């Protein structure tokens, strides 16, 4: 598994191609997994969740975000620790309900846009402001099996 902050590590054979015995402490660039008894099976919690205390699951209802990769019935991971930025898919509070939309910040306004162009944008008025509940980081879709 790659860390979230650093670039992915790439494994290449040593130059010269000689069969050099890898030293476990450096060969993988991840510390020393080979002799660390603490290494276990890949865990989706580690892979998908960056901020465990700030992450919540929600269910998507509706298909206006299908083009953005989120469909009706998908489970999404929502991370409240991430500061919402332009083009993030967010969960916003609109009329006391939770709405999933792309956040679009423009010089003169902030709006919530569906991926489906026929769905009107929700323009955030200056007096109510925008309440972003959290940023969507992953979508999980169950396939028929």
């Amino acid at each position: 598994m790659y860390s979230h902050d650093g670039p992915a590590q790439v494994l290449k054979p040593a130059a010269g191609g000689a069969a050099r015995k890898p030293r476990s402490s450096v060969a993988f660039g991840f510390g020393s997994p080979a002799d660390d008894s603490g290494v276990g099976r890949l865990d989706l919690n580690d892979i998908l969740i960056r901020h465990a205390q700030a992450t919540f699951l929600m269910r998507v209802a509706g298909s206006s975000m299908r083009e953005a990769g989120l469909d009706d019935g998908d489970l999404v991971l929502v991370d409240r620790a991430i500061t919402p930025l332009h083009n993030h898919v967010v969960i916003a509070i609109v009329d006391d309900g939770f709405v999933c939309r792309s956040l679009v910040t423009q010089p003169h306004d902030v709006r919530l846009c569906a991926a489906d162009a026929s769905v009107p944008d929700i323009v955030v008025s200056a007096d109510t402001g925008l309440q972003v509940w959290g940023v969507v980081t992953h979508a999980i879709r169950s396939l028929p099996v």
Partner: protein
Amino acid sequence: MLALVDVNNMYVSCERVFRPSLVGRPVVVLSHNDGVCVARSNEAKDLGVEMAQPWFQVRHLQRRAGLVALSANFELYGDMSNRMMTLAAAYAPRQEIYSIDECFLDFAGVRGNLTLLGRALRAQVLQWTGLPTSVGLAATKTLAKLANHVAKTAERKPGSYPSQLAQVCNFGELSAAQLEAVMRATEVGAVWGIGRKTGARLRDGGVHSVLDVMRADPVALRRQFGVVLERTVRELRGQPCLGVDEAPDANQQIMCSRSFGEPVTSLASLTEAVSGFASRVAHQLRSQRSVAGAVQVFLSTSPFHRQDRQHSPSATLALRPPTADTRLLAAAATRTLEAMFRPGHRYVKAGVVLVDLQPHARTAGEPDLFGDDTPQPATGRDRMRLMRAMDTLNQRFGRGAVDVASAVRAARRPSSVARQEQRSPRYTTRLDEVITARA
């Protein structure tokens, strides 16, 4: 320096994270079987709703003032509590979880501006979990608790204290004159450990403010009120008297937790510890003649061992019917532990909390018509006698002389369904109850 961090109106705040329509409205949370108010929003407090007030006395406010009543959702509160506690733990070398919504942080050895640290903690908990907290900083537990009271009151009632004390109040950075003004403005009954009766007696004796009691002669106080009040006054004067486990009991809950000397990795050791905690809290529960409606178990790894995989779960199981039976409580706690435990983690702390407490008399002998009919190992009366016998033996031969064997696993499985009419979904612990977002 110590900090007392707690969530403002915890249960109501948890509900509001997932139901924005409740923000700004008067809200109360009702205990098991919807009997009494166990949490109130500030708006409900302003309507005059008292803590532990029976619901039927305030029901009329639903129509008249838009009061919203919700049934307690301890699974949700337990999970939100765990998120908050885990975040707070990273701010100080030592954390002592005091109740479902408050913990002490010990900053011994930490340099820097603790007020700023407190503000950072508050901001992080608010952003990450949606829960508003108050932070009180001072030299002793009693003072930290009082500073927290000031932080909360300054925010809720503007004008009661200087506005810069709102949300995060650090007694350590006030001048002697400022501190004196705060103590003069604070009623003596607000002090942790001074109950209603003692407060009334103090007022009869002319002691009204915290400043009054701080200036009273400790020896005279001891003669008249006993050693507990004397200790409280010493704490108010900045002399630490309360050790780790010596805090007065939190309202509405009983807790036992411990940091392990060495990290624990095996389920067997954790089971033993948790089972022991359950026995202790059960004993305390019976000594106050109460039963518990839910049990919370938490575990945590050390946030300071950054190379360790972190896992700090917490889960809450509703008990139906509410019980004070050590075996049932221990069984519920160990089952919860087994469900949370993940091999390969180095746990440094565990705890058991009993919540949703209610007087035993109300439920004694009452047949549970809606419960499942699993045959019980003994009748209720025999069970109470057995528990009494256990308590006596433990008192005589020391705590733990008689305990529940691991046979507890076979004990009756408590149903997790409670009779609660207005309970909100368990948004964070049940997949079929998560929030739906429209897209």
